[in-house]
């Protein structure tokens, strides 16, 4: 049976982080019962349109999904299980902030069926955590991480690097400490300043001194690759590192062109029907989405992707993972393959196109050569 991944978006946070451009909102109170009903209703709607599939993974993203009551999480998982069949090895991930309050809910999540957490630790330095607008300290994060490791089979955490005034030596030391925490999966993101965020405004006004230039950022990237490889957690995607076998199956669905359903405000989906891939995008304002679900109309827009768009997307996403893209599977002939191969930026392994180690940090520039 065809596999599908299910993404559930919880759009609320306790505070908005200054670097974040995700669909997240700070509100005083959330009527969890209303949201439970809305998710349930969306699952029903999707399952009647796409009945015969097997759920390979569920991912609760946000926002801060660890602000969901365990009951809400349980209701979504139960609903999905009633609507579709679960794969034997179903992976159910929840993003969590590493505070003591949230650690207190871990047992409940476990009971609801969550078997993997991804923790937003972000930094192992109290000063930098404050600068990133995080509400936790390093010791609190480590304590929450310990609880998570005791509770769940699989734990991953995020770090943000290439921060203001971060020296290569400091990052090397911090990443070494992180690797010592013995998670089987790490997401290591270089800090990206997005327009429309608090950091974006600060940068535009001439603030945010000490951000790394391209050469410094490349040095930090190299350190990251070397240390994680030595520790047995090589990158399998641009920013994601795992012990072999511990990769996020849910996220691999996005990168390898699999189908996924997106539920919740602003959630995107890609669903193939009758050979055509369709893109769905839900209303992004939380209350607008909630009311639309309650009215049972106008929750999302759906558009078929042209074969060319689908192929370009497949290449864009697929080259992020080290396995690469099998060109036989896409209806598109990338340009400049010979030049890029000559320059040692890509590798062609039969029909499979993948980036070389040298090409990996240059993905955007390579995509431009391949597709523009």
């Amino acid at each position, binding site marked *: 049976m065809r596999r599908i991944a299910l*993404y559930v978006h919880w759009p609320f946070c306790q505070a908005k982080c200054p670097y974040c451009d995700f669909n997240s909102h700070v509100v005083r109170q959330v009527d969890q019962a209303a949201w439970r009903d809305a998710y349930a209703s969306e699952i029903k709607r999707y399952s009647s349109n796409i009945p015969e599939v097997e759920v390979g993974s569920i991912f609760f*993203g946000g926002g801060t999904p660890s602000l969901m009551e365990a009951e809400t999480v349980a209701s979504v998982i139960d609903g999905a299980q009633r609507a579709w069949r679960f794969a034997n090895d179903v992976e159910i991930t929840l993003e969590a902030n590493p505070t003591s309050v949230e650690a207190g809910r871990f047992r409940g999540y476990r009971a609801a069926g969550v078997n993997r957490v991804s923790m937003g630790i972000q930094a192992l330095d109290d000063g930098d955590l404050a600068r990133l607008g995080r509400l936790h300290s390093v010791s609190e994060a480590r304590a929450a991480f310990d609880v998570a490791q005791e509770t769940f089979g699989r734990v991953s955490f995020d770090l943000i690097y290439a921060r203001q005034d971060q020296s290569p030596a400091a990052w090397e030391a911090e990443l070494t400490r992180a690797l010592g925490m013995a998670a089987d999966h790490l997401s290591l*993101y*270089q*800090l*990206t300043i997005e327009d429309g965020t608090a950091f974006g405004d600060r940068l535009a006004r001439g603030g945010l001194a000490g951000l790394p230039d*391209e*050469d410094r*950022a*490349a040095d930090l*990237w190299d350190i990251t690759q070397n240390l994680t490889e030595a520790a047995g957690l090589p990158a399998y995607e*641009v*920013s994601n590192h795992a012990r072999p076998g511990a990769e996020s199956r849910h*996220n691999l*669905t*996005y990168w390898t062109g699999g189908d*996924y359903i*997106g539920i919740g405000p*602003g*959630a*995107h*989906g*890609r669903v193939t029907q009758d050979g055509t891939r369709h*893109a769905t*995008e839900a209303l992004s304002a939380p209350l607008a989405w909630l009311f639309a679900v309650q009215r049972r109309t106008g929750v999302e827009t759906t558009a078929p992707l042209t074969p060319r*768009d689908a192929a*370009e*997307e497949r290449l*864009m*996403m697929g080259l*992020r993972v080290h396995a690469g893209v099998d060109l036989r599977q896409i209806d598109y002939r990338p340009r400049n393959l010979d*030049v890029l191969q000559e*320059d040692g*930026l890509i590798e062609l392994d039969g029909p499979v196109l993948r980036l070389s180690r040298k090409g*990996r*940090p*240059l*993905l*955007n*520039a*390579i*995509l*431009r*050569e391949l*597709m*523009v």
Partner: protein
Amino acid sequence: MTELAHIRNFSIVAHIDHGKSTLADRLIQLTGTVAERDMKEQLLDAMDIERERGITIKANTVRIEYPARDGHTYVLNLIDTPGHVDFAYEVSRSMRAVEGSLLVVDASQGVEAQTLANVYTAIEADHEIVPVLNKVDLPAAEPDRVAEQIEDVIGIEAHDAVHISAKTGLGIPEVLEAIVTRLPPPHSGDRAAPLKAMLVDSKYDAYLGVIVIVRIIDGVLKKGDRIRMMKTGGTYDVDDVGVYRPAMTAAAELGPGEIGYLNASIKQVRDTRVGDTITHEKRPCDAPLPGFKPSIPVVFCGLFPVDANDFNDMRDAMEKLALNDASFTFEMETSAALGFGFRCGFLGLLHLEVIRDRLEREYDIDLITTAPSVIYHIHQRDGTMTELHNPADFPDPGTIDRVEEPRIKATILVPDDYLGDVLKLCQDRRGIQMDLTYAGSRAMAVYDLPLNEVVFDFYDRLKSVTKGYASFDYQMIGYREDTLVKMSILVNDEPVDALSMMVHRDRAEMRGRAMCEKLKELIPRHMFKIPIQAAIGGRVIARETLSAMRKDVTAKCYGGDATRKKKLLEKQKAGKKKMRQFGKVEIPQEAFINALKMDG
């Protein structure tokens, strides 16, 4: 007709934002020249580019009737003059057409550079000058200090300056009274003498054809007259004469001392040269007015459409612009790197930028501009001489006997605090000092300079080293031999013809280094390293290496980001259109002109 004694012709000299347009509006309004319901802001400014850049490119004029306190009604003719060194000649003609100026200075800001340059032109034209301090109602206004500054810096009496607020209308009646009592009437004018009129400016009107602004010196100009342009030789039948109020208003005639327009079915602005003398064909005046100079382009550059499909539209647009601009010339050019385009001639760099802006904005054509150049005289060994407009056409050095370049006499007025920097700048640009004198706290430096050292960014540099307090004027003085060579630029070992330039041999290394360094900043990193070299013939004289790009990857990209990432790619596709491909290297179009800007 109006008696000379009851005519006052004047211009307004002011820095941008010091209130010239608002004052003009108030004068027009208070005298009832425009009905209240037709009043709008900045009546005299025409083009968007003029408003934005705070410069006037074409002269405008308006006739105001003012019943003065002495019981007589006076005719006041205001000429709004252009105000940039590129148009120095046009400014000087406009100034010669009037007898006095209002010097408007913002009482909260003080005297600024543009004021200085134009006020000296007014002084040279023997104007009476009435200082007007504007914005005296602002809390930051310091009228006494600014009056003192006018006396110190410009050297004219300012204790009886008129205090006004053009915004509120305060002091406007006093300005009108000062124009009548303190500015002189036209110096002479004989109604019975043969017609002698100055061609002040002309513009193309899509409906009426070419409209000429004239100042009558002697004689009378009427509808039906057959006139002759004394320098260009053209003869025309006058269809119409009139004045601007500020709308065009037909008049029976224009007499001595008056300023107005004539319309004579002239097809192109090219046929009307600023400063020419207009007379009657049948009964001509004995001599033309002094000071006429044909306006000839001195700066050349290539303009190429970014999109080759725009070539025909670009040619149409340039033909239209040339109809209204005698000093703009163009002919077709082909570049190996840039394809089909045009070699264009301009009065100076501002003129170049104005034309380029108009092509881009009014005609919506994206352009690549190549290095500006002057006309070199290449004397071949076989005794022939060719004019070189484009360094790319530089012949085999083996066939050349000598190369001559145009020189100018530059006059620079500057407060003496900045003199040292100005002398250094002129020295750096191969200048030869001809004269250096002092007047009060101002110095006047006269230099013999190669035009090619001036055309590009000399004026910008001068403004920057003197904080805007220098005024600058120049005239061509002829050609002189020097050791001039063609410097080529190679990017990733490929010569880029659009970047080649003529330089003095002694300055080649310095310019080459500066160009390579600048290009290194302007060309984005590629995924391989790129050598950038300057060479004379086959010999490399400067070299930089643009290192390879090391990191360009989106850190986070999950299910929801695919759509966003796709949009980024679409944007990159659009961005690629703004680049030019040279072998494997993409060069952004603005690099072709920015590479030449020198910081030192």
